[in-house]
């Protein structure tokens, strides 16, 4: 709990600072309205629900929040597992892009019963992301190329290749009767992530997958000897090697898993809400994963919690526009929170001072 405190305080302070900023630039009445709108838009509009009794006022926002939370969780986990072995995977964005494309292509071009089709799409996305992350890992081991450089560069390779060529060129939608279509072909219904509440909300199976992934990662990292070996590698390669741990294998495994998680994030985006590879992915989900991992302090469940919060705030952020406040405040809060977490010495001192002194 004590470890989570700096993150919690950082997020709260970030929200407060943004609130004050909004209040000063507009007026505080509007700021209160806008931030409340964001909150209701994130986690269900309870006042309206109590007033009207319409369940969609709760379920619709929750659905949007969960969709975004799922993607953030996956990219956050991606950065987290690589960081466990001491690698900084800045390439979650690129891995997410290739994963999303793989999901979109398999979802549209392959015809199978749903029971097989959906898993195949997820598998394809995970594999594409993993393979895309394998390159930097091999380059690091064989040639000593720093993974930060190679993964960053491969982001732009992925974006250029996929967004600027494949999706607008060879893979562009061919479906007749939809001339305005941008992006790739629609995926088949059998590849869609099932909606948990039917037409009431876009809430889909993606958040369940994210939850499972976070819990499994947590169990793996803390309960399995292999997870322990990853931690040892991340803290001291030399000592890990001298202890008989295969450091190179650890790097490869962690990068594969990292890429797979990013790819799955892309799959959740495509198979859950977009239903095709769109002209634009909407947000730099992969880069946001870095923030999720850092604010979540590299703990899989922390990443899940933080992703849920920011997924929600982003879903609700659009509602701020109703009050003339720009919808980018959730991103602003995220950036500030990250900054404050990075300055954690500040918190450590404060917490030390406030915590009850042990009897000397």
């Amino acid at each position: 709990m004590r470890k989570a405190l700096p993150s919690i305080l950082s997020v709260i302070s970030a929200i407060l600072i943004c609130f004050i900023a909004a209040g000063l630039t507009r007026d505080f009445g509007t700021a209160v309205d806008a931030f409340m709108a964001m909150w209701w838009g994130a986690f269900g509009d309870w006042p309206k629900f109590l007033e009207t009794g319409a369940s969609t006022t709760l379920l619709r926002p929750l659905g949007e929040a969960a969709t975004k939370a799922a993607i953030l969780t996956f990219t956050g986990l991606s950065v987290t597992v690589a960081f466990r072995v001491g690698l900084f995977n800045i390439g979650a964005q690129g891995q997410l892009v290739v994963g999303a494309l793989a999901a979109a292509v398999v979802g549209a071009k392959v015809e199978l019963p749903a029971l097989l089709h959906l898993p195949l799409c997820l598998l394809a996305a995970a594999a594409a992301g993993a393979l895309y992350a394998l390159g930097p890992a091999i380059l690091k081991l064989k040639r000593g190329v720093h993974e930060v450089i190679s993964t960053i560069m491969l982001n732009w390779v992925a974006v250029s290749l996929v967004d600027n060529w494949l999706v607008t060129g060879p893979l562009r939608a061919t479906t007749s009767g939809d001339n305005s279509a941008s992006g790739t072909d629609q995926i088949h219904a059998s590849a869609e992530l099932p909606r948990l509440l039917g037409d009431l909300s876009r809430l889909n199976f993606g958040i369940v997958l994210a939850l499972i992934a976070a819990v499994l990662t947590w169990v793996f990292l803390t309960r399995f000897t292999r997870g322990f070996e990853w931690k040892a590698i991340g803290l001291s390669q030399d000592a890990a090697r001298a202890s008989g741990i295969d450091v190179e294998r650890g790097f490869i495994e962690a990068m594969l898993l990292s890429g797979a998680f990013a790819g799955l994030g892309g799959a959740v985006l495509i198979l859950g809400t977009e239903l095709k590879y769109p002209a634009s992915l909407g947000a730099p989900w992969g880069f946001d994963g870095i923030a999720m991992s850092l604010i979540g302090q590299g703990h899989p469940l922390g990443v899940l919690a933080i992703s849920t919060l920011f997924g929600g705030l982003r879903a609700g952020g659009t509602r701020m526009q109703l009050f003339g406040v720009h919808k980018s405040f959730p991103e602003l809060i995220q950036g500030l929170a990250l900054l404050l977490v990075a300055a954690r010495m500040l918190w450590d001192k404060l917490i030390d001072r406030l915590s009850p002194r042990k009897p000397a």
Partner: protein
Amino acid sequence: MIELRHITKRFGGVPALEDVSLEVRPGERLALIGENGAGKSSLMNVLYGLYQPDAGEVCFDGQAVKVKTPAEALARGVGMVHQHFTLVPTLTVTENVVLGREPTSWGRLDRARAEKEVAATCTRFGFQLDVSAVVQELSVGSQQKVEIVKALHRGVKTLILDEPTAVLTPQEADELFAVTRHLSDEGLAVVLISHKLREVLSFSTRIAVMRRGKKVAETTPAETSPEQLAGLMVGTEVPSPRERGEGQGEGPPLATLEKLTAKGLHEISLSIREGEILGIAGVDGNGQRELAEVLTGLREWSGGTFTYSGNTLRSWNPRTAREQGVAHIPEDRLRRAIISDLSVEENVSLGRQTRAPFAKGPLIDFDKRRACTTALLEANDVRPRDPKIRAGGLSGGNQQKLVVGRELDAAPKLLVVVQPTRGLDIAAVAAVREQLRDQRTRGCAVLLVSLDLDEVMELSDRIVVLCGGRVSGEFGRAEFDERLIGRCMLGVGSAPHPDPLPASQGEGDLSA
């Protein structure tokens, strides 16, 4: 004059210093001795402004002063050189020395002036240093001199050296003491934190002994003896080392190298037998480290053969080595043996993390790991006995006890030990040596690398001398002779070879 008056300092309720008073007088060489954790470093950290005392005061020339930061200590003329250097490896000697108070002209570093000033400081205090050399290219001994010059350049009047010889070769240590003698002649006070009695007795003008956070005695070298000091430090009589005892005799060779060549090693041929301690003697950097790395699977070889347990090895890495019963107590425990940010119990499982009792299938066996660690801490007297704390929070001596305990707990067939007693206090040294002998008695093959020739001669059944990555001599127990071995270490003539070498030169390199 500096006085520490009735200093008390606690960490989380545990007293590290209890009512300690100490004077530091100009022109003296004060040795502060005690076992690991006796409070020597803590006391000096109070003086240097790193710790704030819970009670008591620090007085400069009779005036009580609160020293809150090392910067304030420096301003009052107190400098400290730590065991771990604080130099920027890629900068030159001058740049390191002036760092933080650079002479500038127009906002730029005035290099010429800086070099002149630093060179002047070096000359004044008798340091021979190339002020424009890049620090990372200097030897450890020279880097330490840079640290000292850095303090002197800031005009310190009191210089604290925290276990300065732990990282030095005997020759470098002699040089260091010569230089510090010069400093005290110049009127500076030098405080030496140490637990090496021999150097304390030859170096200091006054000795303060600490034990468990208290000052237990103050004396001078003339009034005391190593036995008395050891007794004061430990609090009881130190058991004199048990008779060396014959090795269990000549077991079959367990590991044999034949004309093995690797980076740093040239056509090494030697064999290590079960039930013997094979000592490796040599001046630092002559292939000892590389030999240990080959045996433990950390270094590949390019030629020759390595036979272990009757099998000629083709591939050998730390994992296969450990699976086949090789244990390793490396020289640099913080780099290779201990991971500071892991807990003590996690560190205990390192090396056997995938095997019983630390694993249950693919899972960590938390209960057995805890039980195992608790037993190991007890058996090896590691303090505090808490399996959950960070290993980095243990003192150096306790970390080493942890490593030794862990490696021996695996009941190894081959034990590769490099500098096992470096930085340990008397009691711990005696314990480690005892354990190595016990391993031999048990039938383990022990390879002991040490720069301390006395240690090698005391423990080994056989000695192989390395020089320039080659075997330059081999001695059976009956042939042990400091002078002859020393000559092989220097690579002048192989043993036994009565060559009229000036005795002084040989001795100089041997006085470990």
